């Protein structure tokens, strides 16, 4: 499992005085779904372009599937499927023709081409529309066709740049489910960039938070929230039938638990902040003391809070160069 398929070492890209990507170090393992999360203009697209050799890094190296992306982009592109954020198709060709063209460019043999393209169109759910011109396609359909484009070359790694941009919520859910399913079934490594937290949260095994060209934190969502909120990462609120008197006689006993850092009481609602998950023990404790527990609510910090926390620390600096580099 610990077999990094994408290795970025000190990757830096400078546009004039602005560092779009600043000394990025990142390992992505085989078979995982990695989410690159950051606001607009954080350097996500630039990083991706450097991984594909579409732009040269100012310094540092990007190794993808064991090849240096700057000096050997062709062998990287053979194994990596890339879907740009605003994927475009030849409007005068049908979906199938567009797909077959990409298949041919990737050297898919002529006699397999028909079968393969029918297969991938089936996977992305465009089989019924394959003879329509792509100019008539909706944004979501284009996105699906873009995925078909990526799949027809049988990649080891899929890089998706803002794949959920501009699709409606149902479309996003289906699309992300599709990506997850593909990754699990075919063992594909997926790198996904987005500024949409919830989307990333739904599918990604690991997340990297990328602001102003720097990777501020990485890890799975739990680890990230632990890293960020430390002792305050779990909140359990328990509702009991009868109002709790203030001061509460059980409070000192609970305060003595080493995990609990804070207790708040509001009528019949008790809120415990703790460094690890103590919900079950709390319920057992309260029931043992004769309280009638009528509701238990466990709150985990989501990416939203994580994201917010990072922005708080960064919002003091301006964000003037948003996409101005593109």
């Amino acid at each position, binding site marked *: 499992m610990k077999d990094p398929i994408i290795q970025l070492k000190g990757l830096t890209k400078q546009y004039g005085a602005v560092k779009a990507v600043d000394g990025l170090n990142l390992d992505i393992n085989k078979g995982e779904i990695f989410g690159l999360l950051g606001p607009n203009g954080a350097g996500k*697209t630039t990083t991706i*372009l450097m991984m*594909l050799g*579409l*732009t*040269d890094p100012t310094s540092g190296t990007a190794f993808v599937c064991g090849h240096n992306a700057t000096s050997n982009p*062709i*062998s990287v*592109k*053979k194994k*990596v*499927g*890339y879907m*740009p*954020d*605003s*994927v*475009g*198709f*030849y*409007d*005068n060709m049908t979906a199938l023709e567009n797909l077959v*063209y*990409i298949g*041919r*460019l*990737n*050297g898919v*043999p*002529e*006699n397999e081409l028909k079968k393969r393209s029918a297969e991938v169109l089936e996977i992305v759910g465009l089989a019924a529309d394959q003879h329509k011109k792509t100019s008539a396609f909706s944004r979501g359909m284009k996105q699906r066709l*873009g995925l078909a*484009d990526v799949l027809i*070359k049988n990649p080891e790694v899929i890089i998706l740049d803002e794949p959920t941009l501009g699709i409606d919520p149902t479309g996003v859910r289906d699309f992300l489910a599709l990506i997850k399913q593909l990754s699990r079934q075919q063992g594909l490594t997926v790198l996904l960039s987005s500024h949409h937290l919830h989307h990333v949260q739904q599918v990604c095994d690991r997340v990297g938070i990328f602001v102003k060209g720097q990777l501020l934190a990485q890890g799975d969502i739990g680890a990230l929230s632990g890293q960020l909120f430390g002792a305050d990462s779990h909140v359990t609120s328990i509702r009991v039938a009868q109002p709790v008197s203030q001061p509460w006689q059980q409070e000192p006993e609970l305060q003595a638990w080493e995990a609990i850092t804070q207790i708040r009481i509001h009528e019949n609602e008790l809120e415990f902040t703790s460094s690890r998950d103590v919900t079950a023990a709390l319920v057992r404790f309260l029931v043992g003391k004769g309280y009638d527990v009528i509701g238990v609510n466990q709150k985990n910090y989501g990416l939203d809070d994580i994201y917010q926390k990072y922005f708080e620390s960064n919002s003091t600096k301006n964000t003037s160069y948003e996409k101005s580099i*593109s």
Partner: protein
Amino acid sequence: MKSQSLDPGPFGVMIHKEIADHIRSWRFSILIALIVLTFIAAMYVSLANIKSAIGNTKDPDHLFLYLKLLTTTDNSIPPFHVFLSFLAPLLGICLGFDAVNSEQNSGTLTRLMAQPIYRDNLLLAKFVSALVIVSGLFVALALLMIGGGLVLTGVRMEPQELLRILGFIVITIVYVAFWLSLSIVLSILFKQAATSALTAIGIWLFFTIFYQIVINLIVKSFLPDPAYLSQAEIISYNDLILNLQRIAPNQLYSDAVTTLLMPSVRSLGPVTMEQMAGAIPAPLPFKESVMIVWPQVSGLMASTAGCFAFAYYFFMRREIRS
């Protein structure tokens, strides 16, 4: 396409697709129609006047029926090769002005560049596919002309005539290639297709209309009164003007094709009386005509290659972003 041994590779696939795109596009159909109409009009006029042209025994070229077909006119319209000297650039420009920037604007360039193909293959495919089409067009027109002439007149064709007509076609293709590569460079430099088209048309207009005027104006401003000049000085000034005019690609083209299509043309510059003394007004052999136009042909080829090199230079290390 079924056989496996004939795998065309990505480059072949791209050329295949580009040619299909050109053939299906409206603007190409319109330009082909324009050129075919010009060709028909020129042929019609020359066929009407071919009898007097062949009968004109004072003209040393009067026996080259097929060359006469291409060059004879009653002055109502210019002959085909003169037409081509300003239509061919349009053809080249229309095939190349949006080669790269339209792909970039529609977002297909990023998608294409993410495939395992070399970047230069894209440029080369754009260039070669347009040239294949243009060559096909001109070769077809020439063969139609020869075939039509054979059927209508029944006159046997001299091998020399065939060589000269093929030479004319080759030079025309090189001329189109120059404008094609120029417009591809512009399509890389400018993000908007309209800008690159206008710039290309501006360059074309400058060379066809204004360049000669500008040269004349400049030379006149420092040219002394010819009455006070010796003959040698007049010739040197004349050479200067001619050489300046030969910077314009259309001048190179018309020099080259005129020499090839009119075998009696011996020199492209002024000829003194001493040089003419003892010359028999007879057509030159094919090889001699080629020798005369060789500088022009190599000049055209060099500018084509130069433009193409620029295209490579601008495109190869550029960041591709949609």
